């Protein structure tokens, strides 16, 4: 294992690729790798690209890679596409738009399937980003799956979140509702070669006037990702936001919030794994029949499992409360 990590840290692409697979597969080794590399992280500029399906995220990412490469930066890309909820398989096709960079030693592109994760990213995205960061990539771009209104996990990982909008995505109510509007640090209104861009841009700007936090107003850029129009300015805004985040009190607060959510996620992930393990070992035909016959109930079964995990804690809290206080019918 150490050999593999050292190779990856020295920049060996195949070692990096192999470790990302271990992470994706939930290999227990992954935690040890993260502990080992964590001190080396925090140097890369981490950019998230999100937006509705087909908005041009991959095409825009391709142009961003070009822009950063011209400035001599090395770039890592994590491109997430949805896994089928039925077969668990996936067609990972974001890469098609970036293939011209394959073969450039300063670029590493990895496609990931969501594998049941619902927040617009895949299970191992965070760890893969940390790994690329530790291995010395200057810029890391994460392309989320095509999102609708509430898949906003990207804010937990990216320093700068770019939301890609396109003309014809619905009326202003749609724009108001979309959760992704609130997470943007930089906007790209892509497909600016199509009619309706000005209206979308105007609506976004109007919405931004209502934002209370005035320390950073998300810039709105019109882009044509297909031919690169507007991409340079868009990239400049990303870099500016990154500087802002690194040098302002908001930035420090943001970093604390993010680290806190990181601890929370790891904690929950490990708890879930442990709890699932106990549940699987307890699950029997007899128990299922008892449940079906209402001889016991899911709540009792679950608190029995929790009791196994944390013997000291008090799981009957709610019950006691219910017996003594407000819920009693005579009150």
């Amino acid at each position: 294992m150490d050999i593999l990590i050292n190779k990856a840290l020295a920049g060996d692409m195949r070692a990096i690729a192999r470790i990302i697979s271990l992470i994706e597969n939930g290999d227990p080794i992954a935690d040890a790798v993260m502990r080992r590399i964590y001190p080396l992280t925090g140097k890369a500029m981490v950019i998230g690209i999100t937006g509705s399906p087909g908005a041009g995220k991959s095409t825009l990412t391709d142009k961003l890679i070009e822009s950063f490469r011209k400035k001599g930066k090395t770039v890592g890309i994590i491109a997430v596409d949805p896994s089928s909820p039925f077969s668990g398989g996936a067609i990972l096709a974001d890469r098609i738009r970036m293939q011209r960079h394959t073969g450039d030693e300063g670029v590493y592109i990895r496609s990931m399937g969501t594998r049941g994760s619902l927040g617009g990213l895949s299970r191992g995205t965070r760890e893969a980003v940390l790994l690329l960061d530790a291995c010395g990539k200057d810029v890391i771009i994460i392309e989320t799956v095509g999102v609708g209104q509430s898949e906003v996990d990207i804010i937990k990982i990216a320093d700068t979140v770019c939301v890609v909008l396109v003309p014809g995505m619905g009326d202003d109510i749609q724009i108001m509702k979309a959760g992704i509007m609130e997470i943007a640090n930089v906007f790209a209104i892509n497909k600016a070669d199509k009619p309706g861009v000005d209206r979308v841009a105007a609506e976004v700007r109007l919405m931004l006037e209502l934002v209370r936090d005035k320390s950073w107003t998300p810039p709105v850029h019109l882009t044509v990702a297909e031919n690169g129009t507007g991409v340079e300015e868009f990239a400049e805004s990303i870099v500016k936001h990154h500087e802002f985040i690194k040098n302002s009190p908001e930035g420090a607060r943001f970093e604390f919030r993010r680290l806190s959510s990181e601890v929370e996620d790891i904690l929950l992930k490990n708890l879930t794994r442990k709890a699932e393990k106990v549940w699987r070992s307890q699950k029997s035909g007899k128990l299922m029949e008892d449940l079906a016959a209402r001889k016991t109930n899911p709540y009792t079964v679950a608190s029995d499992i929790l009791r196994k995990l944390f013997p000291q804690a008090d799981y009957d809290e709610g019950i006691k409360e219910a017996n003594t206080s407000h819920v009693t019918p005579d009150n």
Partner: protein
Amino acid sequence: MDERKIRVVVAKPGLDGHDRGAKVVARALRDAGMEVVYTGLRQTPEQIVETVLQEDADAVGISILSGAHTFYFTKIIGLLKEKDAGDIIVFGGGVIPDKDIPGLLEAGAGAVFGPGTPTSVCVEWLEKAVADKRAKEQ
């Protein structure tokens, strides 16, 4: 450990623009639970091999209907060996005359499927090939 998925790159080398077969096979592999990285058209052998390595794929499926199969299969297999990645499964299909198939297998291709092959045959073959490969790794 969660599940170790089969990862496979489906690639279209050269100027050949026939992509129906590649897409049909990619979907069939997806429906069998695999993660399929599709490269799109007009890839050089170097790009294909680099993609396979970056994606840590178990296998690469090549689709060729242009007649240039012997060149591309040989080249891709050779590059993989050069990169110390000769264990990665190479297979494929397309319009490939029967008489050319033994040569491709000799060069190191695992299997070659011609027009009209039910996709289930390709899927089952790959599942078995990956299982064998992984068994050897242990």
